[in-house]
């Protein structure tokens, strides 16, 4: 036998083992997911509606906010749409149960709500009945819901049942209301009580429970208030159980609609469409240019004043229009009905959103600090602005007054008798302002690379942010390699910067720092330094950068 081939017995054993393992994983998945909807026992109910917009299969069926089933099918019949619903929770459809098509917010998915219903717990719901009921007239429902619907409990469409439910005047009726004599033949569902001792005399903790109880019996045990039969301490709240209540509600909603229509008609007066259009267009242009200013290619240095003036003008014009509307001269209706206005308004809103998003992304920090350099017998003061277009990139600009002074190198070439002599001299101007301008990149919120000019010297920096997650900059170790021209070679500045109160609202802006100005000695002394300062986020400057 080829040693690289497995015997048939091995193949079968491994195959069965793997299959069993996968089956176990599947079973666990179903079990711990509390039995997904496609696993649970289904009690079919049919609902007739005139418009099923937004409904699709597997849409949830809810009652009092809880999911009690799912939408199984949507079918078109001659005059209406028939929705097949699977009820999976132990609830009973009551004679006055109504269905409402609702949405989760303005843009959310549609779902069907049933109410009122009755929780039956361990009560057995009768056999699955499937009945077709002719569509009934529908009464308009409140504004946020679809019309009330016909609802049928069903069982395959084979035979009529006493559970049959009809709709009259938009309200669900059942046979008990339509034909009381016949309805008496139908016994209500019974609660399983056989083989259970009388436990009314026992305390709750002492009450026995059946070991072979179902899932819902367990729920009843754990959460006694969930048991519909336990009404001793429960307060009953009726929701739409009376036909009269529903009629009243619908009448009120109709009145409200009429009033809103009158209001809109009254507003359709006086406003000059041309002026409004120009105003919105102007506002739109301003916002668009402000958005460009924030884009990577945008000019951050352009004049903010001009943009603010334009924006003020636009807002003035808008305010005038609003005042006219307030005086009863405006026409909100015309604005809403004219697609040109709608487009412009939409563009303006989009640009405003873009602007706000970009402005929100930018982080801007101002840093003021001072450091004492004993070796140089003086102190350094600096003002820096750190701009973060995104969290991983920053620009650092600033000015510094440095005891080392501003260094100027003067190269002089002298030619005498055909020979050229180059002389390089260095001048130090004490008290001169030094510039800082660096471009930095931060990796993984921890590693910080930057290059540019730091305190007047060309420098390359590497830093490590060692603070805890979320406040990485609470402790930073930084090494700046810079060129100063004092002797041959490069200088190293080593800095430890601590902002221990970074997450504190009041003290969070304070920082202390210290380190070595250079690993080289200056005048025979180690050039250590120490200092402190304040860092704060400046929203005013951020706003100026946002508009150009």
């Amino acid at each position, binding site marked *: 036998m080829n040693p690289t081939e497995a015997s048939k017995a*091995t193949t079968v054993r491994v195959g069965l083992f793997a299959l069993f393992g996968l089956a176990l994983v599947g079973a666990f998945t179903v079990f711990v997911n509390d039995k997904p909807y496609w696993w649970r026992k289904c009690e079919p109910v049919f609902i007739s509606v005139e418009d099923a917009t937004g409904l699709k299969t597997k849409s949830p069926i809810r009652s009092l906010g809880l999911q009690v089933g799912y939408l199984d099918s949507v079918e078109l019949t001659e005059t209406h749409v028939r929705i097949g619903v699977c009820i999976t929770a132990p609830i009973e459809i009551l004679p006055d149960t109504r269905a409402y098509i609702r949405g989760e917010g303005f843009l959310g998915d549609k779902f069907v709500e049933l109410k009122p219903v009755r929780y039956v717990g361990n009560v057995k719901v009768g056999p699955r009945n499937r009945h077709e009921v002719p569509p009934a007239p529908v009464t308009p429902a409140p504004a946020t819901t679809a019309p009330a619907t016909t609802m049928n409990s069903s069982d395959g469409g084979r035979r009529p049942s006493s559970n049959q439910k009809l709709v009259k005047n938009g309200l669900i009726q059942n046979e008990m209301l339509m034909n009381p004599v016949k309805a008496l033949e139908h016994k209500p569902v019974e609660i399983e009580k056989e083989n259970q001792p009388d436990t009314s005399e026992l305390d709750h903790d002492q009450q026995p429970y059946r070991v072979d109880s179902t899932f819902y019996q367990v729920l009843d045990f*754990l959460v006694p208030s969930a048991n519909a039969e336990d009404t001793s301490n429960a307060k009953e709240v009726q929701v739409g159980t009376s036909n009269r209540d529903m009629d009243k509600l619908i009448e009120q909603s109709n009145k409200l609609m009429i009033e809103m229509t009158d209001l809109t008609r009254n507003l359709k007066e006086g406003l000059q469409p041309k002026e409004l259009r120009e105003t919105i267009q102007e506002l739109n242009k301003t916002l668009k240019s402000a958005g460009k200013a924030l884009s990577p290619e945008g000019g951050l240095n352009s004049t903010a004043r001009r943009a603010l003036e334009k924006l003020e003008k636009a807002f003035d014009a808008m305010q005038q229009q609003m005042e006219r509307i307030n005086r009863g001269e405006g026409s909100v209706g015309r604005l809403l009905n004219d697609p040109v206005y709608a487009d412009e308004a939409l563009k303006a809103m989009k640009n405003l959103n873009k602007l706000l998003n970009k402005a929100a992304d930018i982080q801007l920090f101002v840093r003021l600090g001072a450091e004492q350099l004993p070796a140089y017998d003086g102190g350094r003061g600096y003002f820096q602005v750190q701009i973060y277009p995104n969290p991983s990139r920053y620009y650092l600009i600033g000015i510094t007054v440095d005891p080392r002074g501003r260094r100027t190198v003067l190269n002089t070439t002298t030619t005498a008798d055909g020979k050229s002599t180059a002389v390089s001299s260095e001048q130090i101007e004490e008290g001169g302002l030094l510039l800082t301008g660096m471009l930095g990149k931060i990796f993984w919120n921890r590693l910080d690379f930057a290059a540019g000019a730091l305190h007047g010297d060309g420098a390359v920096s590497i830093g490590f942010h060692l603070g805890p997650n979320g406040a990485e900059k609470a402790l930073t170790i930084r090494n700046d390699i810079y060129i100063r021209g004092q002797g041959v070679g490069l200088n190293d500045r080593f800095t430890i910067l601590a902002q221990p109160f970074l997450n504190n609202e009041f003290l969070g802006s304070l920082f202390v720092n210290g380190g070595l100005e250079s690993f080289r000695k200056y005048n025979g002394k180690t050039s250590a330094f120490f200092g402190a300062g304040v860092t704060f986020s400046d929203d005013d400057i951020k706003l100026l950068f946002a508009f150009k």
Partner: protein
Amino acid sequence: MWKRRGLVLKQCESIGVSSSGIIVIAAAFMGAVLGYQFYVAFRLFNAEALLGGTVGVALFRELAPVMTGIMVTGRAGAAMAAEIGSMKISEQVDALDVMAVDPIEFLVTPRIIAGTLMVPILSVFFTAIASLAGAGVACGVLGMNPAIYWTQYAKVVDAIDLVHCTTKGAAFGLTLTLIGCFNGYRARGGASAVGLATRNTVVASCLAILLIDYILTSFLPFGYLILKVTS
């Protein structure tokens, strides 16, 4: 690798099917002990109803994959180190080279694939058996209602815990087979080298499993970090 599938199947049988016996025994006792201990602890707070969920979460997230990894290390990891080590010192591996058979492809790869595939399945077995054993002790011996045990179990255990179990199982399977093959392949000298390789495999694998368990629990997005998301 498809042409070597027979080797993979053989290793699957060796690592997975043959190990199921000790996994069942270990899981049964582990689950029973968990049932006792948690029941005693929860009894102090009159919270025995939480037993099922606690046993389930403990098994799925930690105990089942770790215990399975350690059991498979003792049984299959040591065996593969000894087998490859013996082949190495008796120059059978060199002979494979001479015959133009890649020893890594022939000896190592099937074991690693089999370990990575079989240990997650064994971990799920472990969980199932231990959960049943825990239920047996809690309900059969201590008189708890099985419906409460299993309802709490389904309520507390989440599908993500199953992902934990299988992910950790796969990582541990990969680790223990890698360490076993590495130590076996590195064996030099006489027979004592085989013993040394076996010992090193068991020690290193157990420690690596615990270390990787810590790392996965800390840094997996559905590990400890899930607390940050939900809080």
